[in-house]
């Protein structure tokens, strides 16, 4: 029984080749194998959105994919947003609007909002609410997050 496979993935612009056990989730691969622990794991069954990453540009739950399925794919994680330490306008807007408290949900929200804003640069408030409905935050009450996304879309 072959339980390991070699995969080649591009993560935040860097190519990696790794051997993975086929049952390893993408989230665990990013965190444990690549040491990219910015991707957070909350529920691990697709409800909380904390582990959201971009797969070929689309927001997906990394706990609901196997690492082996990303062979040949391009992945963006929160670490890729500010590779040189200079925050993106979205990250700055989160900071300025206090759009995070404990920060656990923040990587997932940033990745969800990043994909959303690429596709919908000038969203309505309703569209923003709909876009982030798959990301649970237990601290902020969401208003500051919505405001942050609104700010960056208007800037």
């Amino acid at each position, binding site marked *: 029984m*072959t339980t390991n496979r070699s995969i080649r993935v591009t993560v935040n612009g860097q190519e990696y080749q790794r051997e993975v056990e*086929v*049952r390893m989730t993408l989230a665990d691969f990013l965190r444990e194998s690549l040491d990219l622990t910015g991707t957070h794991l909350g529920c691990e069954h697709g409800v909380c*959105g904390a582990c959201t990453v971009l797969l070929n540009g689309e*927001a997906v739950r990394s706990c609901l994919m196997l690492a082996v399925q990303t062979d040949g794919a391009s992945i963006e994680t929160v670490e890729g947003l500010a590779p040189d330490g200079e925050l993106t306008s979205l990250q700055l807007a989160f900071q300025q609007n206090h759009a995070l408290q404990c920060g656990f949900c923040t990587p997932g929200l940033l990745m969800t909002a990043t994909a959303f804003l690429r596709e919908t640069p000038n969203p309505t408030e309703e569209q923003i609410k709909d876009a982030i*409905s798959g990301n649970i935050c237990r601290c902020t009450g969401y208003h500051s997050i919505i405001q942050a996304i609104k700010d960056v879309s208007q800037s």
Partner: protein
Amino acid sequence: MGISAKETPNVCDSNQIMKPPKFEYFAPETLAEATALLAEHGDDAKILAGGQSLMPMLNMRMVRPQVLVDLNGVADLGGVEQHLGGGLTIGALTRQRELERSPVVREAAPVISAAMPYLGHVQIRNRGTIGGSLSHADPAAELPALCTALDAQFVLTSSSGERTVPARDFFVTDLTTALEAQEILTQVRIPPPVDGSSWGFYEVCRREGDFALAGAVCMVHLDASGTCQDARIILFGVGGAPVRADAGVGALIGTKPDAASLQKAADAVSQELEPPGDIHASAQYRKEVGGVVVRRALAQALEGRSQ
């Protein structure tokens, strides 16, 4: 053994971090390979499509398949095609997000476009597939009810050939369909829209994107005088499989639907429902709300929002 966790950074084999149970993984590139794998492994195999239902079940170890057959690499299983007559053929691996955005779906089966935003969240729809949702057959899922209301046909393929099963005969009960262990749902065929028919979709859930506590899809066909010639009302979340609410249809046919007849139809549906109760909603609540969603879906159809 000693401490080993981070000593081999290129191979990650720590059992502590593995959520899913062990399985053998196959990623066939053709449908023939995929069906051959299912013929060989049968009940021991599970098909992985979008993974948005199967992966949680694996992560929680509610299922422990020996073999996983990943369809994502199979050529020609996705995509939406419109026929000359106006009907659609939808490949099983078509993502829900594609259904949501497809202009062809919006034209030929607008009720699907309208309902997709209610299916999970965007991250789920980016991966989740129509074939996966139908084969999984969650009682609260939208797509089984939509396909039943649209009188869709499903193509089931195995190594010994294919057969076509109408949606109304496909869903047996909770998570149980007419699929045999060696079969794959490969195509969804949706007939062309009927002239003069309109549709409605309504669901009630606790939070946006949650599973519906109760929902309804309806198709209503009025003649030139505004008299209801035909209708179909399908509920979800109120039984093991999509529930045909023929009592509600009976209350509409031959009438010129108005607020009073919609209420009558809703009451007739509610009366016949025998929904399950669980921690999300009691049976009594679902019975009541089942009538409400029917009334609102019918009202939407008659408002002509479906044009």
